[in-house]
């Protein structure tokens, strides 16, 4: 993997250099896949959504400014792709209203059934537990814990104040501890 900063690769991509964009794809492909899988999406669908996100990133590459953190930009797009997916599937409302049902969906969407390469039970347990969180809590965990974004960036992506990010993080971690106990 190249050590070039994301912003530099985006600037090159904006000039049409697909090789630079390929580096970004290599760098973020698994991160995006896990982002979607922790939302209860199957391994197969997760890759489709990751591809859609990269395509959207390519189309929006000239809108990106180096002043903004690249991951903030990327996960904004990934969030939009995710919303579009659940809306298209008619599942978004069900996810928010029925956590129990969502847990089943997440179970169905586990890597074992989606054709993913086998990984440890711990990884699957974490994904399943995160998927059982409400969307509001899951998003702050995804961005704050797994993507290690500053709370300010998480707030910007989710459109909520930093204080709300912190309180949701607290509640989410407490819930996760219960689920993984």
């Amino acid at each position, binding site marked *: 993997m190249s050590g070039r900063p994301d912003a530099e690769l985006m600037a090159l991509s904006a000039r*049409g250099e*697909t090789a630079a*964009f*390929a580096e970004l*794809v*290599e760098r973020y*492909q*698994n*991160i995006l*896949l*896990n982002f979607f*899988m922790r939302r209860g999406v199957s*391994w197969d669908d*997760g*890759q489709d959504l*990751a*591809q859609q996100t*990269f*395509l959207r990133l*390519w*189309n929006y590459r000239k809108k990106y400014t180096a002043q903004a953190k690249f991951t903030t930009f990327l996960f904004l797009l990934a969030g939009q792709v995710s919303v579009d997916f659940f809306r298209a599937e008619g599942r978004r409302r069900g996810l928010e209203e029925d956590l129990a049902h969502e847990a089943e969906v997440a179970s169905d969407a586990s*890597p074992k059934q989606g054709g*993913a*390469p086998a*990984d*440890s039970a*711990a*990884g699957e*347990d*974490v*994904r399943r537990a995160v998927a059982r969180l409400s969307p509001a809590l899951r998003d702050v*965990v995804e961005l704050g*814990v*797994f993507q*290690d974004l500053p709370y300010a960036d998480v707030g910007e992506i989710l459109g909520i104040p930093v*204080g709300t990010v*912190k*309180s949701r*993080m*607290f509640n989410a*971690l407490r819930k*996760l*501890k219960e689920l993984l106990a």
Partner: protein
Amino acid sequence: MNEDIERILNGSDADLRAFVASLRAAPQARVRDGFAADVMAAVEAEARRGAFARSLRGLLRPAALFPLAACLVALLAVASIFFRPVPRFSLEKLVACQRADGSFSSSTAAPYVQAYAVTVLAKDPSADRAALQQAVVALVREQNAEGGWANASLSARNVAALAAASEAGVDAAVRAYRRGVRYLRMHGIGEMSAADLSRDARSAAARLPGSDLGVACSVALAARL
């Protein structure tokens, strides 16, 4: 802000900090082999589509729009000359256009109609013989003492029509044709062949409006020649 939340999230709670670390350390799912290549193939295709769309947008820029429109209008104008549809024609329609005195039009806008009509009737064996003879009579009636007509251009066309009528065996045309040829030679005007007349008639058909009866006949004749 709840002080308890602040304390925990600031990392003073070692247990919670370890828990977050364990979450981050959990094995991650990995994309299938060749995923990045598939993405880049899709991106390359998108880039090609984008380039095509940009070139189209470039053509539609206001600055480029005027020359584009001008070219289009010019093309249509040229095409209208060469590809203008010509009305369907029949000898019956032609004869129906003939007036009682044998002429086909008194319109000054279509001075060559009589020449076209005579040529068509003369070259078609199935044409009404009487109509041909009357058309020749009308043509000869306008011939002046020198053997010509109002101007050199009209004279050349009428002589060509009389040549066709002579070949068809119309006696009245033979003598008038000889006089007409003498006139043309006298004034240094070259003789027009039947092929020249045909091209001339087609050109007229493309230019002339069809509202006037005589002009309509001219257009119809041009289709026939």
